[in-house]
């Protein structure tokens, strides 16, 4: 399977996460042929067709947009990886700020411009989800996932509930699970890096967070940290 990993406006965290799958890299190297992956490969083949394009980062410059359109045209599957690619991510918080450079624009999620075949959320994404993407593609499909909120995984992990017991502003109830409640697991309130669940009960969560003693402006900011430009 030929692979292009392309990165736009982002911190490189998603691709670093792939290199963080140290124990699996040898197996992965057997499966894929790196056609374009600037961080770890100096191969510079012609930009031809690829089976799988993994795209990290949001789009914020015309150059990036051209590159994305070209990439979509020459890849069989295009997968958006990470919060920036899915919603604009943290970068989008500068959204309205005056852009110093003409032509650049507030960071946009990929699906605003191209068809995205699959998404892997997270800032950073989970290793397990990157690996099961490759695993499932080997069998010709996309990985299965149970769509639910971080709270579910947090309860399964038998964590103490930070929201109820410590009145910490945890976004677990409205955040897509898949991280095994990583942050509440160390006692840190979920910041919502994996994006919002379907049918999120925003009003109620707003009330709950305000009940933690946060001023409503802070509640809005916290809820909006990863909402980026991608949510409606």
């Amino acid at each position: 399977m030929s692979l292009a990993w392309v990165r736009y406006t982002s911190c490189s965290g998603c691709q670093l996460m792939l290199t963080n799958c140290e124990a699996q890299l040898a197996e992965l190297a057997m499966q894929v042929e790196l056609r374009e992956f600037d961080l770890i490969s100096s191969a510079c083949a012609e930009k031809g067709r690829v089976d799988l394009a993994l795209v990290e980062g949001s789009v914020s410059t015309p150059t990036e947009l051209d590159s994305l359109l070209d990439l979509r045209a020459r890849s069989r599957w295009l997968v958006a990886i990470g919060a920036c690619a899915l919603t604009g991510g943290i970068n989008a918080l500068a959204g309205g700020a005056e852009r110093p450079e003409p032509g650049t624009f507030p960071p946009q999620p990929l699906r605003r411009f191209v068809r995205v075949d699959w998404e892997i959320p997270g800032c950073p994404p989970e290793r397990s989800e990157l690996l099961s993407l490759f695993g499932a593609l080997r069998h010709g499909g996309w990985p299965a996932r149970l769509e639910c909120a971080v709270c579910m995984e947090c309860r399964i992990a038998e964590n103490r509930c930070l929201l109820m017991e410590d009145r910490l502003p945890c976004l677990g109830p409205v955040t897509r699970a898949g991280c095994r409640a990583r942050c509440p697991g160390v006692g840190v309130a979920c910041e919502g890096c994996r994006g919002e669940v379907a049918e999120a009960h925003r009003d109620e969560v707003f009330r709950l967070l305000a009940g933690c003693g946060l001023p409503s402006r802070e509640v809005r900011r916290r809820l909006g940290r990863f909402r980026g430009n991608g949510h409606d």
Partner: protein
Amino acid sequence: MTRLVMQPLRRVEGHGRVELILRDGQLREVRLALTESPRLFERLVVGRSALEIPDLVCRICAICSAVHRLAALEAIERALAVEIPPAARLVRELLLLGGHLQSHALHLFCLILPDFSGVASVFDLVRRGDPLAVGGLELKAFGNRVQELAGGRVIHPVNAVPGGVVRLPSGEALAGLRQDCDVWLERWPRLSADFIGTARYPASGTLTGTVLAVGGAERFALQGDTLYVGGGDPVPAGGYAELLAEQPVPYSRARQSAGDRGPFLVGALARRQLWAARSGGGAVLEGAGGIHDNNTAQLAEIGWTLERIAAVAAELQAQRPGAPLQIPPGSPRAGVGTAAFEAPRGLLVHHYVVDDWGQVAVADIATPTAINQRTMERQLLADLAGIDDETELRGRAARVVRAFDPCISCAVHVIQC
């Protein structure tokens, strides 16, 4: 006039471009442009609660997210006059060390090592079971384990929060860590020697740039209040802005440092040289020569990092149970805070002005790759002098750039271009 453009730069972090300008077949000018899309971090934090800043700015860069978070925390805590408990300091140091280890291992074994055997990537090496690559990845995994243990998340760690840390790694985990450290301390000299044994570096001229690093006066450290400058007087960390005098340049999206004591060289090599000078040590390192000695210095730092991890883990184990980990930040107040750290690739400064409502009014972040920019150009010019073959120029230029271990995401985050 011929202009050779190298874009993208490969096997370095981030998007950059090198332009080599030749006249009469001679390399006359080098331009390094950091072309990452601007993410305006210094702007997006303004008006937001200071307590939220570390969560945001660690996203400047994934490879150095730990040190960005720690520098931001420290600067904010200084602004808010919060003194964190000793146990928290240790956990944070562990996080810093884990990040250091992972980044150096990534650079040496994933980005540099393929150059020695002429393959395109570490994938080609692990596919054939190259023992150095495999060992290096194991070391990288260990660094990540340390980060995950101390930070909760391996990239963009969460355990360090304003006022301290949330959780102490369990006694069991610390014991495991120490055992692994012992194994690594045993294993490392061999792996390091093998790396040096395989190393094939092109010739490199004299180092350009004034070495610059922050550090401890008593022992080698990745954090401190004094900026040490090669061949001159140290400067307090708060004086960083004047020293660096960062300026926008028209062709790059990162500011360049234009201080008159520069251009500066930051990173492992600078740290080693300055520490050697401070501790009265003699010749620092011999090895690759020129800028490629930066790699040799990284190898040496890995050894030090492993020792330090073991020591910090031991100190943490000795903490009495129930020792405080976090001082809750009090009510918002105005203040100014600056923190200087050594990121794996050199000096990193975070500076914030916080207003009466506890919101950030001004943010300034000086990053190693931005600081190194001008030195990189000069080093390229020096090292490539006399070469006229295009392929060779390109190949050598790539290796010089790589030797600096640049991290371009970090460098490009600014307000002004």
